[in-house]
């Protein structure tokens, strides 16, 4: 789960990472009140999870109440690269002497947290990594030992931060690491981490990704929401416990097992089709789950045809057939379905389907054949 900037900053504050003081706002009036409260100059910031907010006009400095009103008005409702701004964060403007970059990431390769620090803050760190890799100091932390003071010193000296902020920058890295562990994050990023003319060190932005699998241990975090980033179809799938990703095409896909579904998308694409979604019905799916999944797939009006690709292991093909029959009973879909059932109880499953004589349902015996068929059907729909 990706947190919005203001949510990340609230987590930062809880762990003692210094951030500018600010307030959350959802309306123009709230924003102006927040700005009055914080004082001028202040910054009005669009809360959407996407880079380049500044360039898109989503971050503006207000020198007075009129400007605050004007900027809040302009930013709320703005579309930034496909996301609509529903929330603002208003914070005191910071004077900036230096901009650094700091992050803690879950390095899958090294199987250890990786802490990074650079004096090239305020820009896209992937670009810095490509153009000037030595500008980023990196250090893996043994997760059993944790982040030690010497790690902070080493990164700060290696990144060549100003001598007088070696200690506070090291201390901030230690807090970011603690937060990373305590909140079970997979990414904590500060860009820019600023030094003020008074030589205070502060996080001017906050990017935090939390591990969904660990949210049960963090009920407060589990409550956090990003209204700009919630697709109604994905929410519906989530509520039904389905693993679902929305895509741009017109062929609905259902399979069992993440790898098989990914592979199905690829085979459909190779056959010239365009998948409308990724939907993993999971291992051991029962009929109800299948019925429920069909509803989710068909809630997308772009879908012109649906492919079921099942290789039964724990999943039983007869259960899948029963679920599909039930779905037809309830929803009476108008788009054609191509169904490939293989593996556990495949004979029974195919028999059930044949007997049900569902309209517009085509059985195929191979994955490749099924993909061909569904692409043809979608094209002629």
């Amino acid at each position, binding site marked *: 789960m990706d947190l919005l900037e203001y949510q990340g900053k609230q987590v930062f504050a809880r762990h003692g990472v210094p951030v500018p003081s600010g307030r959350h706002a959802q309306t123009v009036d709230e924003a102006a009140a927040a700005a009055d409260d914080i004082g001028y100059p202040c910054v009005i910031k669009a809360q959407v999870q996407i880079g380049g907010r500044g360039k898109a006009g989503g971050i503006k400095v207000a020198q007075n109440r009129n400007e605050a009103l004007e900027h809040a008005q302009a930013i709320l409702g703005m579309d930034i690269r496909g996301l609509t701004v529903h929330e603002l964060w208003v914070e005191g403007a910071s004077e900036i002497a230096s901009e650094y970059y700091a992050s803690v990431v879950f390095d899958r*390769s090294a*199987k250890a947290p990786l802490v990074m620090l650079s004096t090239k803050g305020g820009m896209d760190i992937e670009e810095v990594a490509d153009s000037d890799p030595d500008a980023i100091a990196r250090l893996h932390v043994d997760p059993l030992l944790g982040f030690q003071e010497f790690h902070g010193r080493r990164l700060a000296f290696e990144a060549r931060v100003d001598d007088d902020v070696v200690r506070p920058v090291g201390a901030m890295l230690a807090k970011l690491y603690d937060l990373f562990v305590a909140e079970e994050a997979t990414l904590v990023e500060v860009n820019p981490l600023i030094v003020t003319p008074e030589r205070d060190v502060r996080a001017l932005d906050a990017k935090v990704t939390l591990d969904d699998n660990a949210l049960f241990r963090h009920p407060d975090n589990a409550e956090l929401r990003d209204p700009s980033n919630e697709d109604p179809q994905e929410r519906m799938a989530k509520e039904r416990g389905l693993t679902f990703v929305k895509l741009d095409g017109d062929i609905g896909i259902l399979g069992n097992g993440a790898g098989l579904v990914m592979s199905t998308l690829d085979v459909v694409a190779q056959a010239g089709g365009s998948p409308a979604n990724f939907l993993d019905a999971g291992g051991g799916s029962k009929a109800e789950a299948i019925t429920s999944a069909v509803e989710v797939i068909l809630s997308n009006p772009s879908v012109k045809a649906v492919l079921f690709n099942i290789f039964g*292991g724990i999943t039983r093909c007869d259960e899948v057939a029963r679920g599909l029959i039930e779905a037809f009973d309830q929803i009476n879909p108008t788009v054609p379905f191509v169904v490939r059932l293989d593996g556990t109880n495949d004979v029974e499953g195919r028999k059930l389907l044949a007997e049900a004589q569902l309209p517009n349902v085509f059985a195929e015996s191979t994955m490749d054949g099924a993909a061909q068929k569904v692409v043809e059907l979608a094209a002629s729909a």
Partner: protein
Amino acid sequence: MSILVDSNTKLVVSGITGREGTFHSLRNRDYGTQVVAGVTPGKGGQDVEGIPVFNTFHDAVASTGANTAMIFVPPRFAADSILEAEDAGASLIIAITEGIPAHDELRAFNVIKKNGRARLIGPNCPGILSPGKANVGIIPAAFFKEGNVGVVSRSGTLTYQIGNVIAQQGFGNSTIVGIGGDPVPGSDFIDIIGLFQDDPETELIVMCGEIGGDAEERAAEFIAENVTKPVVAYIAGFTAPPGKTMGHAGAIVSGSRGTAKAKAEALESRGVRVGRTPTEVAELAASLLGAAA
């Protein structure tokens, strides 16, 4: 021969008294696996159709000489169960559980690595099947027979799909290893491919990768330097959009990293044949084995 599990495997299952745990433990036993014990705290002294249940892994190992542990408990308890199995002396730990918190996995992995006493497979994996010898986990054994193709995969059903096409071509398997789809798998492709390279029965290795991470790229380098047997690969997720987790916690393209294209290129540039569909993988495997035979 085969790798990791065989007729010497003595299996202890944590979570054996749960619905799924009981079902698969008994299926594994029916297949011929020696399932010697179960662990469920508070149910020590009971049994599951003749399999004795213990309160702790330590009791189970002490009483039965179990050498392999299967973890079937819910995600909240899984890392603890893995660490307990390791502490009790299991030398192979196979974690089926899906949805374990990433930091739990990280801790378990690093403890096991530092102590150097046990090998972890999974979590979030279907287990290991050595056809004709032992089945530990949830792989449907009916689709596979003994043979000379070693399979290692990040995905369960995709493995069945590929294995099935290979079987239809008349070939069997030495061992099928599911390493799981999580960000921090206990064993990587290179660990398992190294074992297949040393296994006399295995004549060809099939690896099924997917988007996310760089395990396939590292495997490519490892294969170039250490593997003399033919390797055929498949990568799922060519059409996956960046930034979206495709079902597996580990299957995500971040920025320009972890794409299927980059993985396939890394493998092909080091002489690994990459099939573009499961069928193509099976055909490649069959043609290589045919040539070898």
